[in-house]
C-alpha cells in the first residue's frame, strides 16, 4: 500500500501487515529528521509534496521492486507538513522469501524515491529556511 499523509505512522503495525506465510524476512527503512544537515543545525523541517504525481511514482516504484526482486508485499508511507527533529519522514518496507531480495528491493525503493518522487524538504536552520534540492541546498526567501 502507498500512503501520503500528514500523520505519523505505526512501524509495528506496518511491519505486521507486511508478513506473509511464505516470507522469510521483512526489511524496512525509516527516514527520520536529523538535528543536522550538511553540518548545519536543523531545528525542524517542513515537507511539500505534489501528491498525485508522488503517488503515481511510488506505485510505479513498488511495481518495479516486485518485478525485479520478487518481493511478497510492499508498504510505503511518506509524510508531509511540519516535522520536528526525531520525527519519522518515510517508511519503506518489503517482505520477501530471502534476505538478498529484501535488502535489494528496500534499497531500490528508497533510492528511486530520492531521485524521482516529487517531494521536497525545507529545513529550518540558524541561517534561515532552506529548500533541500537533490543533494544541494538552495537558500530560500526566508
Amino acid at each position: 500500500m502507498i500512503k501520503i499523509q500528514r500523520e505519523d505512522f505505526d512501524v509495528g503495525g506496518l511491519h505486521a501487515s507486511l508478513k506473509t506465510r511464505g516470507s522469510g524476512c521483512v526489511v524496512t527503512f525509516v527516514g527520520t529528521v536529523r538535528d543536522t544537515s550538511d553540518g548545519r543545525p536543523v531545528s525542524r523541517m517542513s515537507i511539500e509534496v505534489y501528491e498525485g504525481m508522488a503517488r503515481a511514482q511510488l506505485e510505479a516504484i513498488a511495481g518495479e521492486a516486485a518485478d525485479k526482486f520478487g518481493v511478497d508485499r510492499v508498504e510505503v508511507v511518506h509524510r508531509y507538513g511540519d516535522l520536528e527533529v526525531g520525527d519519522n519522514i518515510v517508511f519503506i518496507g518489503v517482505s520477501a522469501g530471502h534476505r538478498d531480495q529484501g535488502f535489494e528491493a528496500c534499497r531500490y525503493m528508497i533510492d528511486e524515491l530520492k531521485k524521482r518522487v516529487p517531494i521536497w524538504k525545507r529545513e529550518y536552520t540558524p541561517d534561515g529556511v532552506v529548500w533541500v534540492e537533490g543533494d544541494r541546498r538552495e537558500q530560500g526567501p526566508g
Partner: protein
Amino acid sequence: MKVKVRYYASFRDVTGKQEEWLDVPEGTTVQGIREHVRGLYESIARREQVLVAVNGAFPALDRVIEEGDDVAFFPPVSGG
C-alpha cells in the same frame, strides 16, 4: 494554445505563483515549454536542473504538449 502550468517548492517561491496559464504555439514540445518558462523567470533560467512533469510522469523532451495536459515545473526532489 493555453496550457496550465504549476510550480512546486522553490519554483513557486521564485515565480511567486502556484500556477499560471501560458500561451504557447500548437506543437510546442516539453523542451519548448521549458525554454518558454526559462525565458519568463531569470531565477529558473539560471538553474542547472529544471524538471518538467506532464500528467504525473517525466516525459521525453520531444513530447508534444496537448491542450489539457497537466504540466508541472520543479527543482530536483529531496524526499525520503
